[in-house]
């Protein structure tokens, strides 16, 4: 469908679409929105690498394909390594990689495939300095296998292998800070983003393309199925994750931190605001909520300090 010019000039996101309708994501899926934005930002001159994750299914069973871009499906733990090989081959074959008019190599992996099983390959990819962007879409558990905890699952969350119950067997470890592990590699560009703030995400995707070397974006992607939340609340939940400073938006660019919250002046909302819309947190006691709040406060203060000292 042709978009009228009058509408086009008011759009804050690219009008072009390279992610087809008719994909097989659940209602209210943050990941499918995220992938749509990635392809809007990068267009067809893109090679996407998808390991085992929800997007394996979302991309469609053979012979169907949701993506209007080259796609290589790969094994769970190999995203970083396969990206490295693709980038090396493109260079060997004489292609311009990254930058203006360059080919974009995009890794699109879930939190399990990044924080856990794929961490080694990610580290290798970052450390060797390949020209490509790795995007971790973070829905905070192994959703494709049916909601099991990952290293990126937050304190207090119900999952099918931290099921609550009489013994209060909930997730008792705080969320692994993958972005901090990435930054420890002193990459040229790393950022957090959220599907609730698509303009910010697209801006970061473009930066990730312009800046040479490896880029990393951790994208907060609500999962109504796994979070036991209403399918029409995904954006609201993602926005609250930012507003409560549970998932702050920031960039690390050439050694400098910059917090890019929609409003950096306002004090974060209490974490309950974020928790109460999601059934996965219903087993949390008052003490659990306090423990999580303290962690959020601590991480937020740390980030502000980093932005102050290395801003």
């Amino acid at each position: 469908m042709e978009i009228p010019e009058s509408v086009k000039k008011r759009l804050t996101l690219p009008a072009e679409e390279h992610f087809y309708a008719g994909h097989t994501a659940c209602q209210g899926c943050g990941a499918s929105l995220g992938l749509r934005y990635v392809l809007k930002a990068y267009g067809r001159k893109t090679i996407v690498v998808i390991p085992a994750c929800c997007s394996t299914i979302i991309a469609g069973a053979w012979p169907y394909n949701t993506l209007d871009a080259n796609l290589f499906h790969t094994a769970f733990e190999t995203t970083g390594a396969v990206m490295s090989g693709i980038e090396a081959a493109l260079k060997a074959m004489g292609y311009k990689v990254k930058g203006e008019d360059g080919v974009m190599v995009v890794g699109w992996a879930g939190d399990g495939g990044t924080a856990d099983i794929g961490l080694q390959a990610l580290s290798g990819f970052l450390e060797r300095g390949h020209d490509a962007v790795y995007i971790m879409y973070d829905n905070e558990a192994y959703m494709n296998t049916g909601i099991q905890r990952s290293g990126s699952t937050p304190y207090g969350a119900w999952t099918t292998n931290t099921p609550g119950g009489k013994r209060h067997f909930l997730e008792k470890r705080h969320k692994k800070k993958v972005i901090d592990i990435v930054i420890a590699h002193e990459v040229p560009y790393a950022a957090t983003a959220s599907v609730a703030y698509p303009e910010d995400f697209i801006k970061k995707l473009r930066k990730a393309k312009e800046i040479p070397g490896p880029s990393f974006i951790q994208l907060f992607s609500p999962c109504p199925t796994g979070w036991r939340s209403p399918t029409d609340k995904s954006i609201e939940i993602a926005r609250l994750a930012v507003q409560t400073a549970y998932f702050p938006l920031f960039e690390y660019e050439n050694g400098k931190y910059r917090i890019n919250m929609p409003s950096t002046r306002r004090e974060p909302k209490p974490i309950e605001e974020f928790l109460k819309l999601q059934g996965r947190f219903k087993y949390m006691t008052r003490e659990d909520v306090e423990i999580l709040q303290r962690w959020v406060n601590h991480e937020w203060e740390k980030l502000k300090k980093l932005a102050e000292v290395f801003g």
Partner: protein
Amino acid sequence: MAEYKPIRKVVSGNYAAAYAVKHARVQVVAAYPITPQTSIIEKIAEFIANGEADIQYVPVESEHSAMAATIGASATGARAFTATAAQGLALMHEMLHWASGARLPIVMVDVNRAMAPPWSVWDDQTDSLAQRDTGWMQFYAENNQEVYDGVLMAFKVAETVNVPIMVVESAFILSHTYDVVEMIPQELVDEFLPPRKPLYTLTDFDNPISVGALATPADYYEFRYKLAKAHEDAKKIIKEVGREFGERFGRDYSDMIEKGHVDDADFVFMGLGSLMGTVKEAVDLLRSEGYRVGYAKVRWFRPFPREELLEIAEKVKGIAVLDRNFSFGQEGILFNEAKGALYGTGARPIMKNYIVGLGGRDFTVRDVRAIAENMKAIIESGKLDREVEWFHLKR
């Protein structure tokens, strides 16, 4: 065609592999160090450092990633290579399936090394043979020359049938032992092996493709059949490429099993790789002493040359299968495969399995003679003393 004048170099098996990679104009190498493979990738790195080879070299953080990166490079459209041994090959196992399933013509050298524990860095074929069901073709080199020739032919065969190939050589016996290798001038290699022309790449941005998508039970089966058929079809290609190699460079590889004195032998020794060099030496000696013996050196283990095996089995009274490997709870792997291939045919030679040389235990001409005496007695009496013999066992 320019006149072929070989360049003779004294090199190790590993350097022979590295020279073949250079001459094949490989574009991407992703690899991880492991004894006794490492000198292959060191030599390749040296070629790059000296400006002798234009290769993108990815020094990955594990063998699993080595195979994954090689897969990414090959899917993109480049000619890609890696090398490994033993534990490294086992770590790659998952991705070996990925390479063949995605129909990528990757060539890899595996330096046969014993699996741990106990730790061992010495020759043993169980590492590569344990990968027999991954959909890779396997070529076993007897000597350094065959390592060099094998890598060059492997690229041609792999890129014709879109199936990856493992070129296998022995730890230390070949990998670190120097021998004369006749190398082919670059322009003649280029004539034999032109640049890769992939059917599909990830770089057609006007017609994007998806590789490896989910296949439901309605389709998966046919994907498997196509890979199975590719292996069967590869037999013809292997013979053609082997014949062409012989016509161009004087070393004919049109037989998937190299045969010696089969026509007038009572029994033959059958085996894979470098130990067959020892066997060939011994067979000459034994024949001069009146033994009616021959040999059958299995060059290609996958696809398995069942037709050629049958021809041999129909001619001889016995086959002594030498396995430098073992499948626990069963028997030597080549022995098991050979018996299976002959079942249902008319050929019924007496077959005995000798487990030899595991973990680099020396296998000598004297050992071949002892086996020959044992086989001779078995054939004369018509009675098999035992089916599987752990030949070197300390008693």
